[in-house]
Structures are given as C-alpha cells and as structure tokens.
C-alpha cells in the first residue's frame, strides 16, 4: 500500500510544476487586461478540470485493483518518462533556473465595459491546458494508491499555494526551479508507475513495498548520471576559445 505522504507529496509536486505556468499566464493576463474577466475565465477552467477529475475518478473507481494498477502503472510510467527525460535535458541545460522570459501579456489593456472575452479565453485556456496534466496525474495516482481524496488535496493545495505566491509576488513564481521540480516528479511517477505496472501483472517485488525506495534511488542515480553525460556532451560541442 502506497503511503499517504507519498501520494500527497507526489501529487503536490506534480501540480506545482504545472501551476507555475498556469499562475504565470493568469496573473500576466489579469495584470494587463483586468482581473474580473481573467478570474472568471480561470474559474471556468477549474470547473472543467473538476468535471474531468470527477468523471475520470468515478470511471477508475469501478475497475478492480489488479487491472487498475496495470493500466494506471503503464500510463504513469509512459507519461512519467516524458517528464523524466525533459527534466534531465532542462536541468542539464539550465540548472536550477526558473521559467524566466517575458510575461505572456501580448494583448492590449482592456478598458471597455462588460466581459473581456479575450482575457476570459486566455485565462480559461491557460488553466485547462496546464491543468489537464495535473488532473490526469492526480486521478490516476490517487486511484492507483486507492487514496483519491488525498491526491486531490495534494493537487489543489499546490495550486492554492503557487496561486497565492503568484498573486502576492508575481516575479517570484517565475524563479521557482520548475525544471528540477519536473525532474523530481518524473522520477516519482516513473517509480510508482514501474511498481504498480509490475504488481498489476501479478509479479511479486523482492521485499514487497521496500522495492519502492530502491527504485527511487536507482532512477535518481540514473538522472544524475545522464545529467552529467548531457553536460559533458554539451561542453564537448562548444568551440574552443
């Protein structure tokens, strides 16, 4: 049985990774085009995400735990490996830098009456697109661990905390080392994905649940090794001074 803290930490970190971009978009749009339409757009986006979580959660809760762990494990492993690989490449290239860049406010300031549909759409799209991955991770991870409620608390908690930081200290959100967070979550998803997929096939792990920290260490060492190799490769490509 996967511990409560493992579920809480994994879903919290996974949500934090996507919440950074989500909050950056919403705060950027709100600061330039006005807050009312932006917040209504963001709230509409969260409404769509809540429906996705409820429908997907209800569907997965009907699947027996054995096949569920095989399906969820295979999905989390495949999905987690994408973040694992991107995390390695980004940490190797940029270290602990945040997302940086300019604010995503290309649209002009809205001064007209009524709803600003451009702001609404930008905020809605930002929340739905960035939040779908979070919803997917929260539901599958929570279902696999049989702790959907805890997973939802982890996911929502991260969005509230990152959102609060974003509203209070706009630029600080952009300095959070998102690449490192993405790498950590990629390692966690790959670890639990591996564990559950194999368990779902009816294969016993040596040492039972003790295999989870062993897998975690193996994948963390793999990440460190590949980061060093990527950095050496990048240095080898640089022309001599």
């Amino acid at each position, binding site marked *: 049985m996967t511990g409560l803290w493992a579920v809480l930490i994994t879903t919290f970190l996974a949500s934090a990774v996507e919440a950074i971009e989500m909050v950056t978009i919403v705060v950027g749009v709100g600061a330039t085009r006005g807050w009312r339409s932006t917040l209504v757009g963001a709230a509409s986006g969260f409404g769509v995400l809540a429906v996705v979580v409820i429908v997907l959660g209800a569907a997965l809760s009907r699947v027996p735990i054995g096949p569920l762990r095989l399906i969820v494990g295979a999905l989390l492993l495949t999905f987690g490996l994408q973040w694992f690989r991107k995390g390695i490449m980004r940490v190797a290239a940029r270290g602990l830098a945040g997302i940086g860049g300019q604010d995503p406010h290309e649209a002009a300031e809205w001064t007209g009456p009524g709803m600003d549909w451009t702001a609404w759409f930008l905020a809605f799209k930002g929340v739905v697109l960035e939040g779908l991955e979070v919803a997917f991770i929260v539901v599958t991870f929570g279902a696999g661990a049989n702790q959907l409620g805890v997973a939802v608390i982890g996911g929502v908690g991260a969005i509230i905390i990152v959102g609060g930081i974003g509203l209070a200290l706009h630029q600080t959100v952009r300095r959070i080392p998102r690449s490192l967070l993405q790498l950590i979550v990629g390692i966690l998803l790959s670890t639990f994905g591996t564990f559950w997929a194999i368990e779902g096939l009816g294969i016993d792990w040596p040492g039972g649940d003790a295999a989870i920290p062993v897998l975690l260490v193996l994948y963390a060492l793999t990440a460190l090794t*590949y980061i060093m190799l990527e950095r050496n490769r990048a240095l080898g490509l640089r022309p001599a001074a």
Partner: protein
Amino acid sequence: MPPPFSWIVAVAKFLYEFIVGDDWTVAAAVFIGLIVSAILNVNHVAAWWLIPVIVVLMLGVSLRRASNRLR
C-alpha cells in the same frame, strides 16, 4: 473533414501527444517490456527487473536521439 470526425481525430491526436509524447519508441519499449514480463511470469521466471532495465536504457537512447536532433 466534417465536425464529429474532426473532433475525434483532434481528441486522438491530443491523447497521443499527452501520453506518448515526442518519442514513441519509449512508450513502445515499455509496452513490449510489460508483455515480455507477463510472458516470463507465466513461465515462472522472475520478471520484476525487466521494466527498470528498460527505463534506464531507453532514457539513455531517447536522450541521445534528442541531443542529436538539437545539433
């Protein structure tokens, strides 16, 4: 393409990008690894080690491929 079919294609494309991503060989290796693990298990051969080995190897292959694309 009429709307219902274009929506289905759009959803299928989204799901593919979402789950498989930009390197389909990693997802394929995981899928094949799970099938082989199941076959080994049915034949009473220890199979827990196969997926971790595939993860470590395929990460290296995929990273190498991505680096070469950036050159």
